[in-house]
C-alpha cells in the first residue's frame, strides 16, 4: 500500500472522488492556480479544469452559501475555508441554512456539502491562524463534524463526508499535514462517519481525543505504560454526532476517563463527553471524569513561549494521566 502524508491523503480523496463522481467540485480561495495555501489541492486545477476547481473571491459567506445552493441543485461541492479562523463569516450560512434545510423542507431538500478547514495551533500563527473552532458546530443538530487524525482516516472520512447526503464540517489539523505519514490505499474507500476508533487498548484509564492530540496522547500513554499505568486511547474521529457506544463501552471497562482536546476547556466537546459518561456510566466510575484542554484564553499569543504554554503536549497529558491513575 502506498505511503502518503496526511495532506496527500486528502488530495488523493479529492482526486479519486472527483474522478468517480462528476458532481463533485472544489471551491475556495486560491484552490486553483495556486493549489491552495497548504497545497492540498495542488494539481487539481490542471487535472480537472477551472469549472471544477474554482478560485473564489475572499467572501466566505458567499463561498459556503453558493456551495449550499449548488448542493440543492444536484451538485456535491467541497468548499475550502483557508483557515478555520476564517469560517466565522460563513457560520450564518452553515448553521442557519445548511443545518436546517432538510428539516424545514420536511425532507424535500438535501444539502450534501463538505466544508473543509485547517485548524490548530503550534505554527506561530498567532491569534487568527491558530484557533480550534469545532465547538461552534458541535452543538448544531443537522450538521456532522469530522476531525481525522491519521492519513488513512483522512482519505476514507473525506470520501464518506462527500458521499454523505447531509452537510459535513471537516477539520484538518495543519500540524498533521506534512508530519504525519501512513499507508493510504489508491482508489476510493470510506471510513464510516459517526464511529470512533480504539487506537490503543488498556485497562485502567480511557483517554478520549481527536486530531493532533491523538498522537500526543498515544505518546503520553507509552510514557506512563512503563510506570504501570495502562491507558486505552480512543480516537473520536466524528465529534458530532458522537459514537456513544464506543465511549461508554470503553469507560465501563476502565472506570476512569480523561478527555483531551486543543479546543478551549469551556464549551469544548469534553464537557459533553463528561456529561454523557456521568449520565450513562456513573456507577462504573472510580474517579471524577477529567478534562485536559487549552485554557480559556481569547486566542493563542504570537510569542513562542506563550504559545507553547497555551498548547498541550505529551508531557502535560502524561501528567494528567498520572494524577488520574493515582486517584
Amino acid at each position: 500500500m502506498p505511503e502518503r502524508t496526511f495532506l496527500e491523503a486528502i488530495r488523493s480523496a479529492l482526486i479519486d472522488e472527483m474522478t468517480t463522481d462528476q458532481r463533485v467540485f472544489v471551491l475556495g480561495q486560491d484552490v486553483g492556480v495556486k493549489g491552495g495555501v497548504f497545497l492540498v489541492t495542488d494539481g487539481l486545477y490542471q487535472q480537472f479544469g477551472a469549472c471544477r476547481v474554482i478560485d473564489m473571491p475572499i467572501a466566505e459567506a458567499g463561498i459556503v452559501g453558493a456551495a449550499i445552493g449548488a448542493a440543492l441543485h444536484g451538485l456535491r461541492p467541497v468548499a475550502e475555508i483557508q483557515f478555520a479562523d476564517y469560517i466565522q463569516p460563513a457560520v450564518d450560512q452553515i448553521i442557519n441554512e445548511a443545518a436546517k434545510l432538510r428539516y424545514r423542507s420536511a425532507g424535500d431538500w438535501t444539502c450534501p456539502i463538505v466544508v473543509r478547514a485547517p485548524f490548530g495551533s503550534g505554527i506561530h500563527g498567532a491569534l487568527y491562524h491558530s484557533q480550534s473552532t469545532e465547538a461552534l458546530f458541535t452543538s448544531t443538530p443537522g450538521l456532522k463534524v469530522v476531525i481525522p487524525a491519521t492519513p488513512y482516516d483522512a482519505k476514507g472520512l473525506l470520501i464518506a463526508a462527500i458521499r454523505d447526503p447531509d452537510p459535513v464540517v471537516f477539520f484538518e489539523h495543519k500540524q498533521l499535514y506534512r508530519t504525519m505519514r501512513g499507508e493510504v490505499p489508491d482508489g476510493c474507500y470510506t471510513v464510516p462517519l459517526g464511529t470512533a476508533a480504539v487506537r490503543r487498548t488498556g485497562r485502567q484509564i480511557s483517554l478520549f481525543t481527536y486530531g493532533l492530540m491523538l498522537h500526543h496522547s498515544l505518546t503520553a500513554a507509552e510514557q506512563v505504560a512503563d510506570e504501570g499505568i495502562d491507558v486505552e486511547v480512543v480516537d473520536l474521529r466524528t465529534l458530532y454526532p458522537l459514537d456513544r457506544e464506543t465511549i461508554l463501552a470503553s469507560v465501563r471497562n476502565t472506570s476512569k476517563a480523561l478527555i483531551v482536546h486543543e479546543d478551549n476547556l469551556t464549551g469544548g466537546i469534553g464537557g459533553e463527553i463528561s456529561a454523557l459518561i456521568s449520565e450513562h456510566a456513573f456507577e462504573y466510575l472510580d474517579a471524577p471524569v477529567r478534562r485536559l484542554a487549552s485554557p480559556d484564553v481569547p486566542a493563542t499569543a504570537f510569542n513562542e513561549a506563550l504559545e507553547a504554554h497555551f498548547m498541550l503536549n505529551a508531557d502535560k497529558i502524561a501528567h494528567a494521566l498520572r494524577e488520574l491513575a493515582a486517584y
Partner: protein
Amino acid sequence: MTKTANVEPATLSLAVSNDPVENTAYITDFSNDDPAELRSIYRMMLLTRRFEERTGEMYTKAKIGGYCHLNLGEEATVVGLMSALKPEDYIFTNYREHGYILARGVEPGRIMAELFGKDTGVSRGRGGSMHLFDIERHFMGGYAIVGGQIPLATGVAFALRYHEQPGVVICQMGDGTTNIGAWHESLNMAKLYKLPIIFYVVNNGYGMGLKVENGSAEPELYRKGCAFRMHGERVNGKDPIAVRNAVQRLRLMAQDDGEPAILEAVSYRFRGHSVVDPARYRDEEEVRRGREDDPVLRFAQNLLDAGILTDEIMKTMAEAIEQEVAAAIDFANSSPDPQIEDLFTYMYASPVANMPGPEDALEAARIARGEF
C-alpha cells in the same frame, strides 16, 4: 493624476491604467512643495524599504516566525498616505502594515521587537507582524481577518461624528478585501450616516494568488462605491506626492462635508503574498516590469532632478537608515520574551471569577520548568 467616479461611472475614463505595472504618470513639479517635507517623505520610503528587506532577512534567519507580509513595492502608497494624516486621525490597516506604523512615528525597535515576539514590542509579543497597535498614535491595529477592520473603522468614524471631534478615519485594505460582505455593509453605512472616513484600497494586483480581475467583477475598485453614491478616485500608488495630494483633499471632504470616499492606490507587490510565498502564479515578465518601476528609486531620481536631493544627502540618509534598522534589530534581539506568568493577563478589565488567572499562569510556568 487622479480620476473621480461620482454618480455617473459609465462616463469615466482612467488616468491610471488598470494594469498595476503600467502606471507612468508622476508628479515632477515640486515648486509648491516644501523641500524638507519632500526629503522626509523620501526618507520614510527608504526606511520602509530597508526595514522590510531586513525583516525578510530576519525571517530567513528564524528570528521571526509565523506569517509575515511586507510592504516592498508599496512604499509610496504607504508613505504618501501617512504624510497626509493629522495626529487626530485614526488608522486601521490589514496585516501588511509595518510601513504604516513606522510612518506613524512609532520607534522601529518596538516594531521589530513585536515581529520577534518580544515583551518590548508594540503588542507585548502577543500579536506579531500582523497585529501591531499603538494607542497614543491612534494606530488601531493590523487585522489578520480579511475585512475585519472595515466595520470597526466605520464605527470609529461614527464616534468621531458623535463627539463632534475633528479628524478622519483611514480604513486601509487590499484589493481582494473589497469582495467581502463587510466592505459593502460598511460603505453603505458610511455614506448613509455621512461619516468622516476614507476607504483606502491598496491595489497591488493580487489578493494572495488571485488577480484583481479574477476576484472582482468590477476591477476598477474605486467605482465599487457607485451603488452607495460614494465618491471614488484612483491614484498612482507609486507616486507618494499624488497619493498625498489625493488624501489631503479627500480628508477635508470627509471631515468638513461628511463625504466619505474610496481612494484606490494602484501599486505592485514586489514579492510573494507573504515572506514564504514563492508566488509561482505570477508571470515572470510581469514581475520584472513591476519591479523595474521602483517607487523608491524613481522618487529619488525625481527629487535629484529637481535639485531637492543630492547624492551627498542620499548617501548620508542611507547610512543613517542602515544604522537605525540595525539598532532596531539589536533592540529586538536583546529584548526579553513576555513572562509566562503573564499568560492570562489582559483577558478582562478586572479580575473575573472562574477564569484562568495569575495562579494558573504560575502553574504553567512551573510545568515549563519541568516541575510537575
